[in-house]
């Protein structure tokens, strides 16, 4: 066993053991451990593998910069990949090593839970070391709303020992942290979170924080007046031959394990330190009776002796390591002599760099500081962000170096001098990239993938950029590490999704009649957020059979469809008529009260934007309908024009979609159905013309009847209040049974309207289609002085005769169903590229026509009726004849029943 728990010290609770499993074996740790510290206490440093080369690896850090020790957690929660250094040990924790790439289980054990929380604070402090705690404590004392977060389970940072004095003669770190956190946690205006990593800082003090709480993880959305970055500094490793062997660690990690967890990660240690701070690890190990040799390459050979219990090899350096699954010896050299030092632990300190990834991602720059041999904040971040403590370059005196930074130990072979452990990239790989002509660190990163693994180059970033500077002969710090981007630490997708999954992902809207549809076996389809009946299969019918039956019922008897989802907007006020004249391409001011008109709204570019009808209820009141999916869009469009261009018009717009329920009764026997259901409205042709509406009762309930047809048949829409919708629907279906009244869905509606050549905006149009392209010049008013889209329609390009026009298509084989979206060509066997002349927008089997048919947009199509075109389906050109886009009852004889 190499590594053990000290009898006293640290922040661990020795009350009882915590049992955990790792790689199939059971171990014991203590409350307060991380998985990594518990493993080290059991003498386990390795068991990990590098992702690409498969080299044995071990724990190399004590924090989020870990590059080797990744685990999959299976109990008591699931995590595909997490650094063992950041996993808090809990009873029953079960984990196994993963080589840098996590994988999701075939069957999810249980959907992981997560919530989002939104808070507003005055000051958010990121980093719970001494600087951060101090800032949070004083802000709370000044009455501010404060939030203090740290990504580790324990506060107090990493830079000082628990028993060190915070200031000369002041309290110990342990006492200071306890007192400050006690005050903060007692304050109702302070939020203190551990295991909570700030993922990114965004505009106007918006910060995302991932709290790894279990069993429910949290994503905090914080809006703060001030951000205090107290993220400390990360240690920079040194590259030398076989510097990746298990047992090689950052020196600060060794200090942290001894001090905070009372764990010595080895029995015989060497520290390679090119920075004064490396001595702290040597002292800590010596204090735990571990024999230590401190190799200090930057000091002259005859410099002062080291602290008690530490052998100092000044002027020597590490040139290699030996061992199998674990470090067994360290090879050192003074330039002439070689020595082999037995050791199972090698601490490395190449220097330090402030942890400024979050700072840079919100616009902060880096400045090379020669005194510190480090990149300090260089300005450019927003004024509400402040960097304090080591991250800001203060309290830096123990971390200076006696000479220029040591990046890598020179040698003939640099191919095992690892720079990025997780990408298995070495000094030789960086040199190859530079030799290939790459000069920018960003390019070297993309050529080598350094910094792109799970650890995001926390230890390799500054090392790589310094090696590049060195290889190019530039000054140290000429280029800094490549640009970091959020998130700072990996965040599971389920946390990003939070509770907004399944039914909470997007609202599901159903009509008041929905329960009836479900009870009658409807198959539903999604239209925007709405669930609409698609078809009503009977006796095992498939879609085609059900739709054929429903279509025939409407054409020969009658059918009923739930049309409640159509968007409805009340347009009210003395300016309503003028306003709608400006918004529709046709005139709405000439509509008489009690009458209905179909209209197009165009975009400013002249393209069809939406369609629907307008009912004029009074001189100053209209009720307009929109497509089901377009309701919100149309209301926004109307509001924009009303508010920004014509604020002088006195008009109010109100969405009333859900105030109404609408049942469309269509077919030659529609009048009989209404009379049987009971209505006080005279539905005869003489009393009730097409495109008129009447208010009265149906089945004893206040209702509006509107003669609108989207099928070409005699049809009445029955509008009632939403609450009466189901009752009236049931009355109609019961009364209609005697007349063959058949419920039909959206698929039948699509077939029926296509047989009549009625377009669906968004299916037959795509935002590049004008009313003229659809052959609907009649819907564009020539007499109105102006309307939205009018000037664009006069652009030369929209007058071109070879624009695509709406046409009908009859496949020469009446059983051939053209796929919607298929391209049309004239010469299917022509030499490529074969010009495409159009595409199919709608295609169905028609029960009435006893054949297939389609609608298409086709270049110059209005002049090409009768021609043959081909739809290439795979290798097979399918011939079809171009026709007028109307297939059923072209003279409109069915409309009045």
């Amino acid at each position, binding site marked *: 066993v190499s590594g053990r728990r000290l009898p006293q010290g640290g922040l661990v609770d020795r009350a009882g053991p915590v049992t955990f499993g790792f790689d199939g074996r059971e171990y014991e740790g203590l409350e307060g451990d991380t998985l990594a510290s518990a493993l080290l206490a059991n003498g386990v440093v390795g068991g990990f593998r590098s992702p690409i080369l498969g080299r044995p690896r071990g724990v190399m850090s004590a924090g989020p910069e870990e590059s080797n020790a990744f685990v999959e957690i299976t109990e008591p929660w699931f995590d595909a990949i997490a650094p063992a250094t950041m996993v808090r040990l809990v009873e029953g924790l079960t984990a196994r090593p993963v080589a840098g790439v996590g994988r999701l289980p075939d069957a999810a054990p249980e959907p992981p839970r997560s919530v989002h929380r939104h808070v507003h604070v005055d000051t958010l402090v990121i980093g719970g070391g001494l600087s951060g705690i101090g800032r949070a404590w004083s802000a709370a004392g000044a009455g501010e709303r404060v939030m203090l977060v740290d990504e580790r389970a324990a506060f107090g940072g990493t830079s000082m020992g628990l028993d060190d004095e915070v200031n000369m003669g002041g309290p110990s770190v342990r006492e200071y942290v306890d007192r400050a956190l006690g005050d903060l946690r007692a304050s109702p205006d302070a939020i203190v979170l551990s295991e909570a990593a700030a993922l990114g800082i965004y505009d106007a003090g*918006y910060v995302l924080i991932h709290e790894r709480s279990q069993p429910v993880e949290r994503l905090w959305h914080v809006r703060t007046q001030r951000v205090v970055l107290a993220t400390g500094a990360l240690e920079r490793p040194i590259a030398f031959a076989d510097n990746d062997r298990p047992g090689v660690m950052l020196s600060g990690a060794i200090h942290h394990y001894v001090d905070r967890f009372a764990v010595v990660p080895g029995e015989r240690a060497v520290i390679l330190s090119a920075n004064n701070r490396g001595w702290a690890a040597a002292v800590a190990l010596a204090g735990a009776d571990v024999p230590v040799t401190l190799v200090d390459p930057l000091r002259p050979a005859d410099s002062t002796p080291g602290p008690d219990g530490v052998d100092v090899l000044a002027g020597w350096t590490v040139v290699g390591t030996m061992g199998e699954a674990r470090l067994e010896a360290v090879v050192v050299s003074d330039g002439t002599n070689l020595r082999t030092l037995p050791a199972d632990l090698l601490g490395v300190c190449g220097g330090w760099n402030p942890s400024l990834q979050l700072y840079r991602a919100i616009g902060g720059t880096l400045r090379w500081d020669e005194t510190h041999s480090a990149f300090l904040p260089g300005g450019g971040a*927003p004024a509400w962000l402040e960097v304090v403590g080591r991250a800001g370059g203060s309290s830096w005196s123990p971390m200076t170096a006696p000479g220029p930074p040591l990046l890598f130990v020179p040698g003939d072979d640099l191919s095992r001098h690892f720079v990025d452990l997780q990408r298995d990239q070495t000094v030789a790989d960086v040199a190859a990239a530079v030799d290939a002509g790459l000069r920018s660190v960003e390019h070297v990163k993309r050529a080598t993938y350094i910094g792109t693994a799970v650890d995001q180059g926390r230890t390799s970033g500054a090392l790589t950029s310094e090696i590049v500077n060195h290889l190019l002969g530039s000054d140290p710090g000429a280029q800094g590490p490549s640009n970091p981007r959020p998130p700072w630490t990996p965040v599971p997708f389920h946390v990003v999704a939070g509770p907004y999954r399944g039914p909470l992902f997007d609202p599901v809207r159903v009509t008041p009649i929905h329960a009836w549809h479900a009870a009658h076996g409807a198959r539903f389809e999604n239209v925007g957020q709405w669930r609409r009946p698609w078809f009503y299969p009977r006796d095992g019918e498939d879609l085609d059979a059900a739709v054929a039956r429903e279509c025939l019922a409407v054409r020969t008897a009658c059918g009923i469809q739930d049309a409640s989802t159509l968007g409805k907007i009340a347009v009210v006020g003395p300016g309503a008529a003028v306003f709608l004249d400006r918004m529709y391409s046709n005139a709405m001011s000439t509509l008489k009260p009690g009458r209905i008109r179909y209209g197009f709204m165009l975009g400013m570019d002249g393209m069809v934007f939406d369609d629907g009808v307008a009912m004029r209820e009074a001189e100053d009141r209209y009720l307009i309908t929109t497509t089901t999916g377009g309701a919100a869009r149309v209301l*926004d469009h109307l509001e924009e024009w009303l*508010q*920004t261009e014509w604020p002088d018009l006195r008009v109010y717009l109100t969405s009333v979609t859900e105030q109404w329920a609408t049942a469309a009764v269509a077919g030659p026997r529609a009048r009989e159905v209404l009379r049987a259901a009971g209505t006080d409205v005279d539905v005869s042709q003489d009393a009730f013309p097409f495109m008129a509406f009447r208010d009265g009762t149906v089945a004893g309930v206040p209702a509006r009847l509107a003669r609108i047809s989207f099928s070409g048949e005699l049809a009445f829409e029955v509008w009632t209040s939403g609450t009466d919708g189901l009752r009236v629907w049931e009355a109609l279906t019961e009364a209609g049974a005697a007349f063959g009244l058949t419920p039909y869905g959206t698929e039948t509606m699509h077939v029926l309207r296509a047989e009549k050549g009625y377009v669906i905006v968004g299916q037959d149009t795509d935002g590049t289609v004008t009313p003229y392209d659809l052959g609907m010049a009649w819907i564009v008013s020539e007499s109105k002085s102006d309307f939205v889209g009018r000037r*664009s329609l006069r652009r030369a390009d929209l007058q071109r005769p070879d624009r695509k026009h709406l046409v009908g298509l009859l496949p020469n084989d009446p059983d051939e169903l053209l796929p919607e979206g298929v391209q049309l060509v004239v010469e299917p066997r022509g030499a490529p590229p074969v010009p495409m002349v159009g595409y199919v927008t709608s295609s169905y089997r028609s029960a009435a026509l006893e054949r297939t048919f389609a609608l298409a947009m086709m270049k110059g199509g209005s002049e090409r009726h009768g021609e043959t075109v081909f739809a290439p389906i795979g290798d097979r050109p399918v011939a079809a004849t171009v026709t007028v886009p109307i297939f059923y009852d072209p003279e409109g004889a069915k409309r009045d029943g």
Partner: protein
Amino acid sequence: VLLIPCPWCGPRDEVEFRYGGQAGIAYPTDPDALSDAEWADYLFMRDNPKGAFAERWNHTHGCRRWFDAVRDTVTHEFRAADPIGRQALREDR
């Protein structure tokens, strides 16, 4: 995520708003008098300055009002926000 000062509701998250592009592009008094090129210029061409930019926002998931605001396109800082048509904004630009 921007913090947008709605002149009616106060500062609110960006997710509550819809962007409306450059402010102060008046609808031409006589569109027919414009050439196709002039019309296209009105319809499609917008400024893209580095720095102060007057733009339109709609508080879609709030009061549903449109307003003009001046935003610094470099810092994303809002310098002013005013109901549509207020002179103050035009002068602050």
